[in-house]
C-alpha cells in the first residue's frame, strides 16, 4: 500500500473515531434542558392522572448564589393531565420550553386520592424509565394533592423540593417519618406478607400564600397491598421503625423515677430489632427483640439518678415506653389487617410449608397473630454532669 493511501485511511479513521467516540447521539446542552427536582402524581377527573413537576432554573440559581437579586424564580411547577403518566409527561412539553430531565428527581409525591386507588399503575412508568432516580424518596400528600404541596413557596433556599428532601433527612433523625426509597417501595410491594408504609406530608394552615413552613412531614401512610388503608401518627410510625431497625435517632420521654410528674429525656443512639417466629401448637408466635441504647440528655427537676438502682429503674422505664409504643403500632396494624411489620414475610422465609397453607387467607390469620415484645435497654452516656442540680 502506498504511503499516501495509508495516510488518507488514517485521516479518515481519525475522523470516524472523533465523530463516534464522543458518544452523544442526542446531545443536549444544559441550557436547553429543564431539570426536574420533584414529581407529583394526582388523580384527575375522568380517571386521568395529573403529573406535576417542579423544574429548576439553573441560571436563576446561579445569579442568586452570586448575591445578585434575581428577577427570575429559581423554580417553577408545571402540571398536565393524561390517561397515563407518560402521556401526561409528554403533555408537559406543550408548556415547558425545554426537554425535561428526570434523573435528578429527589422526591416523588403521590396525592391521597390516587394512593387510595392503588399506586402500582403509576409506579410502573418510573420503574421502566432509564431516567428514574431510584433513590428518590416517596411521600403521600395527606388530605391534599401533590400539586398543592409542590406549589408551596420556599423561604429558605431556592428550590422548595430540595428543601423538602432535606427536611425528610432531618426528620429521619427524630424517627417520626417513614423514609422510603423508590426501589425499596418496589421491593416491599412485591414481597408476599409485607405491606408497605410511606411517609406523609400534609398542609397545616389554611392561608392564601403557603410556604414550606406551613407543611408538616410526619407520620406514615399504611398501605394494604398497593392501596392506602390508614394513617399512622408520628409515634405509631416510630413504633413501626423500631421493629424495622430503622431508628437512627429518637427522643423518648419517660417519667422521672424520683418524681413521676416530671420527665427524663432519653436520646436513642442506636436500636436494633430482630423478629423471629416459632410455631406453637400449629400457630405462629412472633418474638420481637429490641436492643436499644440511649443517652440521658435531660432530667426535669433535681435529684440523684446516678445510683445503680436508679439507672436500673430508668432502663426499665425506657423498656416499657418502647415496648408500649411498638405494641400499639403492631396492634393498630393487625386490627386493620395490614402486615406492616412483615410477619407474613418472616413466616414465609422460616416456615415456607406453613406459609403456603395460610397465605390464602393471611388477612384473617393476621387478626389472630400472637406476638411478644422484649426490649433491652442500655444507658450509654449521661453528659457532663452526674446528677441534676437540686435547688436549696
Amino acid at each position: 500500500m502506498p504511503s499516501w493511501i495509508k495516510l488518507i485511511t488514517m485521516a479518515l479513521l481519525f475522523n470516524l473515531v472523533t465523530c463516534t467516540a464522543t458518544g452523544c447521539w442526542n446531545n443536549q446542552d444544559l441550557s436547553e434542558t429543564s431539570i426536574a427536582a420533584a414529581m407529583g402524581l394526582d388523580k384527575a377527573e375522568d380517571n386521568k392522572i395529573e403529573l406535576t413537576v417542579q423544574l429548576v432554573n439553573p441560571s436563576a440559581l446561579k445569579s442568586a448564589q452570586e448575591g445578585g437579586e434575581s428577577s427570575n424564580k429559581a423554580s417553577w411547577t408545571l402540571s398536565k393531565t393524561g390517561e397515563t403518566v407518560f402521556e401526561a409527561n409528554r403533555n408537559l412539553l406543550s408548556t415547558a420550553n425545554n426537554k425535561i430531565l428526570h434523573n435528578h428527581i429527589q422526591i416523588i409525591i403521590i396525592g391521597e386520592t390516587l394512593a387510595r386507588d392503588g399506586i402500582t399503575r403509576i409506579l410502573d412508568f418510573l420503574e421502566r424509565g432509564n431516567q428514574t432516580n431510584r433513590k428518590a424518596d416517596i411521600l403521600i400528600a395527606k388530605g391534599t394533592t401533590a400539586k398543592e404541596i409542590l406549589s408551596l413557596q420556599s423561604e429558605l433556599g431556592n428550590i422548595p423540593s430540595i428543601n423538602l428532601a432535606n427536611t425528610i433527612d432531618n426528620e429521619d433523625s427524630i424517627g417520626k417519618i417513614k423514609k422510603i426509597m423508590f426501589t425499596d417501595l418496589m421491593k416491599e410491594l412485591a414481597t408476599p406478607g409485607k405491606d408497605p408504609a410511606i411517609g406523609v406530608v400534609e398542609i397545616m394552615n389554611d392561608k392564601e400564600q403557603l410556604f414550606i413552613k406551613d407543611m408538616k412531614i410526619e407520620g406514615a401512610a399504611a398501605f394494604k397491598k398497593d392501596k392506602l388503608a390508614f394513617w399512622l401518627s408520628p409515634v405509631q410510625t416510630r413504633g413501626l421503625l423500631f421493629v424495622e431497625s430503622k431508628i437512627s435517632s429518637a427522643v423518648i420521654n419517660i417519667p422521672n423515677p424520683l418524681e413521676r410528674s416530671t420527665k427524663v429525656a432519653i436520646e436513642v443512639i442506636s436500636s436494633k430489632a430482630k423478629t423471629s417466629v416459632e410455631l406453637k401448637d400449629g400457630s405462629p408466635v412472633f418474638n420481637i427483640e429490641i436492643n436499644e441504647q440511649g443517652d440521658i440528655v435531660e432530667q426535669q427537676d433535681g435529684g440523684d439518678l446516678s445510683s445503680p438502682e436508679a439507672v436500673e429503674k430508668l432502663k426499665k422505664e425506657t423498656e416499657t415506653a418502647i415496648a408500649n409504643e411498638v405494641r400499639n403500632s403492631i396492634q393498630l396494624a393487625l386490627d386493620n389487617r395490614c402486615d406492616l411489620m412483615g410477619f407474613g414475610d418472616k413466616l414465609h422465609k422460616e416456615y415456607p410449608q406453613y406459609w403456603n397453607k395460610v397465605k390464602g387467607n393471611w388477612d384473617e390469620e393476621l387478626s389472630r397473630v400472637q406476638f411478644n415484645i422484649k426490649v433491652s435497654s442500655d444507658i450509654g452516656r449521661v453528659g457532663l454532669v452526674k446528677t441534676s442540680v437540686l435547688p436549696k
Partner: protein
Amino acid sequence: MPEYIRISYIQLTLLLTGFLLGSSAIMNQSDTARQDSWLAAILAVIAGVAVISMNVWISLLNPGKSLIGILKDKFGNVFGTVTAVLYIWYFIHIAALVTRELAEFMVTTTYAETPIIFVAICMVLVTAYLVRHGLEVIARTSEILIPLLIVSVIIIFLVMINLHEYNIENLLPFNERGLKPILHSSFIMTTFPYGESILFTMIFPYLYHRKLLKASILGVLISGLLILGITLRDLMVLGPDLISRVIFPPHITTGLIPNLDITPLVEVNLIIAGGIKIAICIFAAALGIAQLLGEHDHKPFVVPISVLTVVLSIWIFDDILAFFYWINTVWPYYSIPFQFVIPVLLLLMSWLKTKQRTV
C-alpha cells in the same frame, strides 16, 4: 494450521474467563430459580468444569487438530463437512446473540435515542479489527483487559458490603419450590455460557498440551466465581422478585449506590467481556471457514463474517422481549446437539480409536 502462533496458559485462562463471563456480567439468566439462583450458579459451574474437561479431552485425543479437522476425521468427508458448516453457523449465531444483547443494553440504559444498529456496528467494528490481527492479539488484549474486569467486579461487590445494602434474608426460603426450577435454571446457565466452550476446540491446537486441562478448568472456575458473586450480589441487594423482573440487574444494583455513580463500571465489564466473546466467536468462525476451504489465512473471512454478525443480530429478533423469550426457552434445547451430543460422539469415537491403536 500456522505453527508459529502460540499463546500462553495464563492467556488461555483469561480468554476463557472473558468468553464465559461474556454477557453474564449484565444479565440474569436464572429467573426461574429466584432466591435459589446462587445454587443454580454453583451447579452450573460444576457442570461447566465437566463440559470443559470433555472439550479439552477431545482436543488431547486429536493432537494438532481443530474442531473442523476432528469432525472431518471422525464423521467422514461429507457428513463431517456438513456438521462443520453447522458449527460455523453456530459460532456466528453466538456472536450475533452477544452483539444484540450488548447493543440492547446500551440502547436501553444509556443511549435511548441511538439506533441499535449503530451501537452494534461500533462494537463489531472494533472486534473485527481485533480478529484480523489474529489470535495472539486477542489473547494479549484479554491479558490486559480481563484482570481489569475481575477487579471491577470485586470493587462493586466490596462497595456494596460497605453500604450495608446486602440483605442475606433475600436468600430465604431455601429450596421453596423443590429442585426442579433450580435444575432448570442451572441447565440454562450450563448451556449459556459454559457449554459454548466447545468453541475453544478451535483454539486448543495453538497450545502445547501439557497443562491445557488445568488452565481451562481454572478459567471456568474464575468465571464461575465471578458469576456466582454477581448473582449473589444482585440477589441480596434487589431481592428475588425484582431480580426476576429486571432485565439488567447489575445496572440497577450499582445505581443504588449513593453519591457515587459506578454504573459505567458495569458497562466496562460488558464491553470487555462481551467484546472478547464476540471476537473469539468471529475468530473461530473465520478460522473454521478457512480450514474447511483449505486456506491458510483466516483474515479474508473476518469482515464478511462481522457484517453477517451485525445483520443477524438485528434481524433475528423483533424486540428485546422476543430475544429474552428465545434465550430462555429455545436456546438451551437448540444448543444440546452442538454442546453435548456431537462432542460426546466425538469423544467416544476418538477414545475408541486410541484404544484400538493401543490394543
